[in-house]
């Protein structure tokens, strides 16, 4: 070949490798006139190559390969940015619930379609291993396996827990591999350079690398530095340079503009409520209901009992846990109260005077024939005639409702935190397929994605507004295509009515932009938790008017905080860059570890 005619610089720059391994086998067949393959298969082979051809450097190829996931615009933008600007090494720092897994899956799939990535290691917390495997397989058609046996490390895409991977004998196996791609979920566990986790990742050979975390900064500016240095050593200079250039104090950055610019080269953070991320509306309906005389008697009885105990206890809130529980339970169902009362009496001495009081209350329970709330809920469900999830705080209430609905021919499935993964999946499956109703006691935790359902009933209200938000978040999340209808069952003349007033009318939390509530609560709770405040009001009040007044003032202070947060926002917009870093640090510093 006339290689000397080719331009020298091109030759130097791009090595051209020609594969001739096929030639001998072709020659042998010509010599022996066979065996020859089928002409149709020959054409199919050629067409397959044409169909899967990567025609350009830029276009996202993976989209044509994905049929069971429809990525959202911000997820596609993120994938493009990581591929074309960050060149496959990035920190994905979206806020919780915006689909970091989807983004990582898109990027991985794209590299796989382009045949640039084969060997992949995915390190996640042990509890998320199966979820990752499932998502990669079902949503992305990537044959990922969960690491269980040593030979699994030889598979192309392996999902394992960090704790397993960093221990011998696994560690040595992994150190000898070359990974085209490493993905680490919950990467804030790598914030400290001196930990085995961090050093372990440093030692691995990798081409592309994605670090996923909602909280890249928790306590300290150095955490950010460590994370980025792990990804791209020198991106922020050496430790000393970084401290000199960007750190004013442990928790305070300086030269935010510059830092922001540097960060934008390696990190992407999508925020909720920002452009491109669309959530459907929340529509709240309060269903007022009036207790029957017997139920009201029980409520009053319990309230009086609780208050007496509190006073005789010298106003010590700390020791009143079971009393407050009682007060909360009485808003939910008689079954819940009953259980707690029985347990309470078991703990008391035989001759305690409180025992007789408890048995008086139990008698009141026995007098109750109907359950106004359960009836109301059932009518509501019958009326809407669609999938609905009911949340309650108490297992006893859950069981009562299961029984009640089943007696009335309504198919319901339970969902509890204590169930194992398989059972949870099964319940979810039943709810999707057959049951109209799911009754859940647990709102938090991963895996409850109920986008197919857009009605929810708060059978009782948690006293912690974040828990209310978590409940709503199960249904009102990315992928929900309908407006979400939230029904609150509010019993008139009880503390529940007050709480609902407070949350709904005063701070309008049900319809608030997602992500705003935690900011408000955090400020508010600098002076003590919301729950505690409520308990105190309830226990110390002497009359209904007292409660009204106190709750009102609680509402006032929440309201003023909300205005503050809102105003902050306005100021932030004026100085966008500053805001970006500032809120970035606020957010990173405060969000709970997922």
């Amino acid at each position, binding site marked *: 070949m006339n290689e000397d005619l080719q331009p020298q610089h091109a030759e130097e720059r791009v090595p*051209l490798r020609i594969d001739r391994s096929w030639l001998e086998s072709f020659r042998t067949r010509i010599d022996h006139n066979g065996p020859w393959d089928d002409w149709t298969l020959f054409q*199919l082979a*050629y067409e397959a190559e044409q169909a899967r051809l990567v025609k350009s450097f830029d276009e996202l190829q993976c989209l044509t390969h994905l049929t069971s996931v429809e990525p959202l615009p911000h997820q596609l933008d993120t994938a493009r940015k990581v591929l074309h600007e960050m060149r496959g090494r990035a920190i994905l720092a979206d806020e919780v619930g915006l689909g970091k897994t989807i983004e990582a899956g898109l990027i991985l799939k794209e590299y796989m379609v382009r045949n640039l990535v084969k060997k992949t290691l995915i390190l996640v917390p042990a509890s998320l291993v199966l979820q990752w495997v499932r998502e990669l397989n*079902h*949503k992305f058609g990537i044959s990922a396996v969960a690491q269980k046996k040593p030979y699994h490390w030889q598979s192309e895409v392996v999902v394992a827990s960090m704790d397993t991977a960093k221990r011998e004998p696994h560690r040595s196996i992994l150190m000898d591999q070359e990974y085209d791609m490493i993905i680490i979920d919950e990467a804030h566990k790598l914030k400290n350079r001196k930990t085995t986790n961090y050093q372990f990742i440093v030692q691995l050979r990798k081409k592309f690398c994605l670090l996923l975390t909602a909280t890249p900064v928790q306590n300290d500016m150095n955490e950010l530095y460590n994370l980025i*240095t792990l990804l791209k050593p020198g991106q922020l200079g050496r430790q000393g340079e970084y401290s000199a250039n960007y750190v004013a104090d442990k928790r305070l950055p300086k030269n935010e503009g510059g830092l922001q610019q540097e960060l934008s080269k390696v990190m992407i953070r999508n925020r909720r409520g920002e452009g491109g991320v669309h959530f459907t509306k929340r529509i709240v309906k309060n269903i007022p209901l009036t207790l029957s005389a017997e139920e009201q008697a029980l409520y009053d009885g319990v309230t009086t009992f609780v208050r007496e105990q509190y006073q005789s206890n010298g106003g010590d809130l700390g020791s009143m846990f079971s009393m407050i529980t009682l007060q909360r339970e009485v808003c939910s169902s008689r079954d819940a109260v009953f259980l707690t009362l029985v347990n309470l009496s078991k703990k008391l001495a035989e001759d305690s005077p409180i025992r007789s009081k408890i048995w008086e209350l139990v008698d009141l329970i026995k007098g109750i024939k109907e359950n106004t709330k359960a009836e109301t809920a059932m009518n509501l469900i019958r009326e809407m005639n669609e999938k609905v999830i009911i949340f309650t705080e108490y297992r006893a209430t859950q069981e009562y409702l299961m029984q009640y609905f089943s007696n009335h021919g309504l198919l319901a499935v339970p969902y509890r935190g204590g169930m194992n993964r398989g059972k949870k999946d099964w319940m979810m499956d039943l709810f999707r397929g057959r049951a109209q109703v799911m009754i859940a006691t647990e709102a938090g935790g991963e895996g409850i994605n109920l986008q197919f359902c857009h009605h929810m009933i708060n059978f009782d209200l948690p006293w912690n507004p974040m828990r209310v938000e978590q409940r709503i978040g199960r249904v009102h999340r990315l992928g929900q295509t309908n407006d979400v209808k939230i029904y609150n069952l509010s019993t008139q003349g009880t503390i529940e009515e007050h709480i609902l007033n407070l949350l709904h009318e005063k701070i309008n939390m049900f319809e608030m932009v997602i992500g705003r509530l935690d900011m408000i609560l955090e400020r508010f709770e600098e002076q003590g938790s919301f729950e505690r405040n409520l308990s105190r009001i309830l226990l110390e009040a002497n009359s209904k008017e007292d409660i009204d007044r106190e709750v009102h003032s609680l509402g006032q202070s929440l309201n003023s905080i909300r205005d503050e947060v809102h105003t902050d926002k306005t100021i932030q917009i004026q100085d966008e860059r500053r805001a970006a870093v500032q809120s970035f640090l606020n957010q990173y510093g405060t969000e709970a570890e997922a």
Partner: protein
Amino acid sequence: MNTDQISSYVMRYLDAMSCSIMEKTPVYVTVKLSEQADRLLTNRPYYWGFIDRTGTEAETMRYTFVFDPANMPPDPYRAPISYVTAPSVPANPVAAGEAAIQRTFGVAPGFNGGARGPDRIPRENVDFGSRRLAQIMDVAKESGRFVSLYESLDSGSEIQFARGRHSVAYEPWIMLNIKLEFACDLKREEVHSIGFSLISGALHTNFMNKMMQCELTPKLPAQVHTMAWRYSLDQAVQQIEHLLTEHVRNSDETWAVEASERLEDEWDRLAAYYEPLLKEEAENKAKATANEVTVSVTESEIEAKADQASQSIILTIEVTEEPSDETDQETTDNEPNQRTLEEQYEMRRNEIEWQFQPRIEMSIINAAIVYLRSNKVMT
């Protein structure tokens, strides 16, 4: 590929593998695989091992491949595979629920891919990106590598021409279907099909498309003879490679220049980070050695430096103060097989090269020898 193209692709494959089609609609096909197809597609090595050893008659798998899932009637027995991640409510909720209930009560699915009972035929979506289609494509690539073909000679006038006179001369061509991959941290590909005449030495591009329009047969037709080669196979391959090398060298190389620049930039960044650290480490080591504070110091060195012991007290304090900025019980001090800083630097440099180094690869998709009428005009 759209639904029709996929459907036609799969049907041609099944036909080429002599599978028997049980039912075919635009939406799906139900097929009983041939033995050959079963061995390639169903991943049942133990089953086939058993059949081969015992000589039992094989029962091949049946499948329903769905090309257009949206228009597919629901499968009465099948529950959704996933409850958490599947995107939509199954078309038949009652069936799904029943299936879920059966699962808990221990009705185990059959071995043949979630089937219930021997009569049930597993159903799979075959859309672009599905694993089944990818597998069929891969298998086709494996089993369609080399062919030898002759142009048919059966259209009226030519046959008369041939029969009336002497036999027709056929000219041998080598056809290579070649994939070019332009890769750095991203990748672009081209497919070329080049034909080379072993008689005239002529080169033609886009050869495969021309061949797909010809009537070709694997058997030498009657009244036909093939001409003797004037070029060797190696010469043919060399000419084709040369043509493509020229093409590569004349194509836009901006991407490669940019990738090389990125590579250099990244290396500079690494150097700026690691080189001072390495220097520091070397200095510290020297100091430490001098003052007997590291464990790695050898006895002879200690002795040699013993006279400097008076300074060691001050320096020891400096050294021990260093790690106090962060405390973590899970430190790595006595972790085995740590790589040194220098090894890490080397490793990072190699990673960057691996990631960005522009490279072009030329590989064969498949190759053919084709005999065509010698006066055939290639356009």
